């Protein structure tokens, strides 16, 4: 082992507690980044399981441009294309099972979703190879029978002779399993295959398919055949497999970005801590370093020594962080998985760590540490050899604050411009610049702020308070940098508090508005397009006929395409929907908008979609439909709760049926009459819903409670992370106070010699600590409120309309954390100062 590494290790070991705490800060940041990025692929994989299997061995796969279903007649067009030998059509969709009917998995949970493929028993085997594992393949003339994939059979124990109940447009249908087939190697999708006609009936898509697969005749040019087939079909079709469920990936990405931001902020904090610690280290070891220089160590050697130490800490911290991240991903997975299978009917696999995740986590973890150690290392290289002969610890000198403060002010101005620009990226960048700016302006603000808090402190510790205040004002730069570690921690605390309060209140407004009906027939997956099987008109009719029901409205769903964006196209009844449910409008007049929907091709766009496209009321859009492009006019911007995260447009059910051929209801809402007996109405509804296992009956009130619980859980998790994030600022505070005590050894000795008691010295240091944390808290509140406001503003920019709520809770928590930390951080150095040997302290020069 190199001499220098040994030296670095010995130094680190010599300050075990500090090393551990600083390393912890790095570990924490790395853990968040690594863990979260490990979980995201698992989440994506869960969605991908829903995607239809790409038929790898076929030459040609054609789907609708909108990813919706199209008439079977298209199949004949493909068959007629020169060069096509065989072609088959299928209708495939994920189907969310009713929990009561779903098979039990080995881990005790129930299967959430299967991918149902309706295939033509005659032509499908001509195009795709089906390898029978047990039982038989589908045959012409089969009715409600299924062939299932080997992986599904293995997972559920189902086999030939067993039955599986699937939800259908008219309630539910029971299928008999007749065979098991081998899946694609490595595929784990839960595939079930039914005769095309049976699938069409189940999904309420008579005469429609959504995929055509074909094999080219031997000797023909596959590329040519593909283009020829596409040309013959005309617009509205595309090559490649259809991807059901990919719309949710955008939401997953959003979560990924949020967690990465959190991780990066944590690492930035860790960087501050490292920076602070190594500044301490350099001050403490000035004599050692001076001696090394005196006996012939070059500047580079000294810089190398300090960097070796930070590198070692980075490596250890990152290694610990990787292990922690792995556990975090496992733990989070364990918490999220049941929630998911309940709310989204998706099963979540174990964490997946891609090479890029390793690179990101390791690079950031070690990188931040080394970069943070760089400046202290360079300043160590500047320690003159004379320091070895001069026992007094030199004052850490700071450049005049003027230029930095001016730069800080400039940053704050740029940050404000970033917010004003209305661009999400610029606004986020602005928030970061704002904090950096605040840190730079800090030293100038230290004096006045220390003055104000000092006066408060004097009320408690009359004499020591004034000395503490003076000590801070004397070194405003150092005070500011310590306070800044605290600032960043608390700013994040307050900002997240503000954002969470706003999101929570905002979401509840959406819930009230769009799901405010007395009764809801909810599909099992909260994502409407996530594989829920809709009901035919009979269900709505049955509910309408229940005595005591005042009104019923339904929501239908199809996938459409506008420009290059897949949009959920939701069909509502313009007359009953606003009465029973409603949308939260941010542009356009609600009454006029709903009236316009009823009149012609008009749509209401939701916030996310309108933000993506920069939509204006009155603008015309072209919606790609299986019937070709149709022009719709934007008559309003508004959104509901369930679809807030996905690009969505609302059109009339009449238009949805005509242009997108979708007539099944995926969500039903009903209000009861004022004089009706709730128990009686509910009992009647229960009876009806029992025949439709794809739905569950909820009261508006129950739903709100359910969502509150879900959000509560997420919030608690975030709060835990937030508090953990504040811990590193405690370490930073301790470090700086440590340097303080060290630098003022002689001064403290004099104070003791002229009659200060140990207690008074202790109070002075704790007072200083309190002042520093008060400073950090003040900056943190300021920065946090701003950052929170920006975050909520940024959310609004993405179309997720919500008012900014002032985070009283977060604010109080931040102040409490700030003050408590101030005292805790002061205690250790205060004890050290008070216990100082008086004579040694005086001799210290």
């Amino acid at each position, binding site marked *: 082992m190199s*001499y220098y590494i040994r*030296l670095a290790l010995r130094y680190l070991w010599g300050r075990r507690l500090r090393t551990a705490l600083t390393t912890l800060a790095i570990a924490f940041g790395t853990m968040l980044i690594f863990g979260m990025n490990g979980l995201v692929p698992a989440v994506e994989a869960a969605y991908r399981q829903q995607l239809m299997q790409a038929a790898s061995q076929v030459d040609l796969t054609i789907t609708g441009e909108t990813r919706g279903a199209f008439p079977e007649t298209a199949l004949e067009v493909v068959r007629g294309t020169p060069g096509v030998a065989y072609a088959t059509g299928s209708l495939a969709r994920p189907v969310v099972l009713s929990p009561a009917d779903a098979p039990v998995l080995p881990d005790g949970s129930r299967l959430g979703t299967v991918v149902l493929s309706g295939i033509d028993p005659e032509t499908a085997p001509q195009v795709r190879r089906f390898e029978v594992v047990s039982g038989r393949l589908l045959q012409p003339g089969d009715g409600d029978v299924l062939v299932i994939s080997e992986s599904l059979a293995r997972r559920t124990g189902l086999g030939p002779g067993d039955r599986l109940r699937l939800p259908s447009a008219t309630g539910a249908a029971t299928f008999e399993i007749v065979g098991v087939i081998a899946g694609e190697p490595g595929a784990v999708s839960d595939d079930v295959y039914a005769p095309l006609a049976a699938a069409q009936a189940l999904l309420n898509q008579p005469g429609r398919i959504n995929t055509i697969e074909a094999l080219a005749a031997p000797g023909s040019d596959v590329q040519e055949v593909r283009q020829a087939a596409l040309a013959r079909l005309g617009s509205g079709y595309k090559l490649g497999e259809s991807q059901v469920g990919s719309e949710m990936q955008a939401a997953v990405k959003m979560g990924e970005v949020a967690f990465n931001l959190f991780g990066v902020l944590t690492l930035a904090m860790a960087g501050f801590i490292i920076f602070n610690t190594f500044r301490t280290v350099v001050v403490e070891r000035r004599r050692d370093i001076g001696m090394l220089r005196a006996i*012939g160590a070059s500047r580079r050697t000294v810089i190398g020594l300090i960097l070796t130490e930070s590198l070692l800490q980075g490596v250890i911290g990152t290694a610990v962080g990787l292990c922690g991240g792995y556990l975090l991903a496992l733990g989070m997975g364990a918490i999220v998985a049941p929630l998911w299978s309940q709310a989204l009917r998706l099963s979540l696999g174990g964490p997946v760590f891609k090479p890029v995740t390793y690179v990101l986590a390791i690079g950031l973890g070690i990188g931040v540490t080394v970069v943070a150690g760089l400046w202290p290392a360079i300043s160590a290289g500047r320690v*003159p050899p004379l320091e070895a002969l001069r026992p007094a610890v030199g004052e850490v000198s700071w450049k005049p604050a003027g230029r930095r403060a001016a730069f800080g002010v400039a940053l704050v101005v740029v940050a404000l411009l970033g917010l004003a620009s209305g661009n999400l990226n610029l606004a986020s960048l602005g928030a970061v610049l704002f904090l950096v700016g605040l840190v730079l302006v800090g030293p100038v603000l230290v004096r006045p702020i220390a003055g104000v808090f000092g006066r408060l402190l004097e009320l408690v510790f009359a004499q020591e308070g004034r000395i503490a205040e003076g000590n801070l004002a004397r070194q405003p730069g150092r005070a500011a940098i310590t306070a800044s570690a605290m600032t960043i921690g608390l700013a994040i605390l307050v900002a997240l508090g503000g954002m969470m309060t706003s999101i929570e209140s905002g979401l509840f407004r959406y819930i009230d508005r769009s799901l405010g009906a007395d009764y809801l027939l909810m599909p099992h997956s909260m994502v409407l397009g996530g594989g829920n099987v809709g009901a035919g008109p009979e269900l709505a009719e049955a509910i309408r006929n229940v005595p005591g029901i005042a009104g019923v409205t339904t929501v239908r769903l199809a996938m459409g395409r506008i420009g290059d964006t897949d949009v959920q196209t939701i069909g509502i009844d313009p007359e009953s929907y606003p009465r029973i449910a409603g949308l939260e409008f941010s542009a356009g007049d609600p009454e006029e908008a709903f009236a316009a929907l009823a009149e012609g091709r008009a749509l209401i766009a939701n916030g996310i979609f309108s933000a993506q496209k920069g939509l204006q009321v009155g603008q015309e859009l072209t919606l790609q439909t299986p019937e070709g492009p149709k022009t719709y006019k934007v008559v309003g911007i508004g959104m509901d709760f369930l679809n807030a995260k996905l690009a969505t447009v609302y059109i009339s059910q009449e238009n949805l049926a005509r242009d997108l051929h979708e007539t099944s209801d995926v969500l039903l809402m009903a209000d009861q009459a004022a004089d009706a007996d709730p128990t009686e109405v509910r009992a009647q509804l229960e009876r009806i819903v029992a025949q439709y296992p794809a739905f569950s009956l909820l009261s508006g009130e129950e739903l709100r409670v359910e969502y509150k619980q879900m959000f509560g859980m997420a919030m608690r998790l975030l709060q835990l992370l937030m508090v953990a994030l504040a811990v590193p600022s405690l370490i930073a505070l301790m470090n700086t106070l440590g340097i303080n005590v060290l630098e003022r050894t002689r001064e403290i000795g004099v104070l003791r010699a002229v009659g200060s008691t140990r207690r008074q010295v202790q109070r002075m240091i704790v007072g200083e600590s309190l002042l520093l944390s008060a400073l950090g808290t003040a900056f943190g509140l300021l920065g946090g409120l701003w950052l929170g406001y920006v975050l909520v503003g940024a959310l609004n920019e993405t179309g997720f309309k919500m008012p900014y709520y002032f985070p009283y809770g977060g604010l109080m928590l931040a102040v409490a954390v700030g003050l408590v930390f101030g005292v805790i951080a002061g205690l250790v150095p205060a004890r050290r100062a008070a216990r100082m040997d008086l004579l040694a302290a005086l001799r210290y020069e």
Partner: protein
Amino acid sequence: MAIVETKELTKVYGRGDAAVTALRNVDLRVEPGEFVAVMGPSGCGKSTLLHLVGGLDRPTSGRVALNGEDLSELGDDALTRLRRREIGFVFQFYNLIPVLSAAENVALPLVLDGVSPRKARSQAQMWLERVGLSDRSDHRPDELSGGQQQRVAIARALAGEPALILADEPTGNLDSRAGDEIAALLRRVVDEWKRTVLMVTHDPRIAAYADRIIFLKDGTVVDEAHLSGGDDGAEKLVRQRMEGL
């Protein structure tokens, strides 16, 4: 050729009204194999002289030559190399690295010079043996007495085989018995191991171990005394001269 030669060496700290002249036109020659002590009252500039000779600080005017090489012409890297190879430092507060053992501390200058760890270690062991601490080589500084720490420091100063040892109040932090031991050790450095020692001290008893004493006052050389080395008469002589300053 003199190992150390200064010409009109002057050092001024501060500027304008606050300027303090620590050294004024000092001319000094130290021949190879000499043991020279620099004495004088507090603030006479004796430490400044040592710093300038050791290349730790730069003069305001005048020059310092080591083996004929003018230090003022050397850059930071060259000065660093010179300190590493030509000079050994002994400090008042020993300045050992607290986390390294005695042997590791002694090996430090060799490691800094790129000597292999194995060779550095055996070299360090040899010097520890010579200063009488071979049984303490694995002890850390806080496990050694002040006198022992200073002996480790002297071993460290000698490990790189420099021709010149600069000692700044080497006994300033020790009791008189340990001080005598260190002074006697420095005497051996000159007599047995043929180095040159330039030592700053304010203690006449320690200075009496030297061959020659330079007396400084207010930054200038005011007197010089040649001694036969180590006897009581010498100490008395030094005391008398000091009182005369």
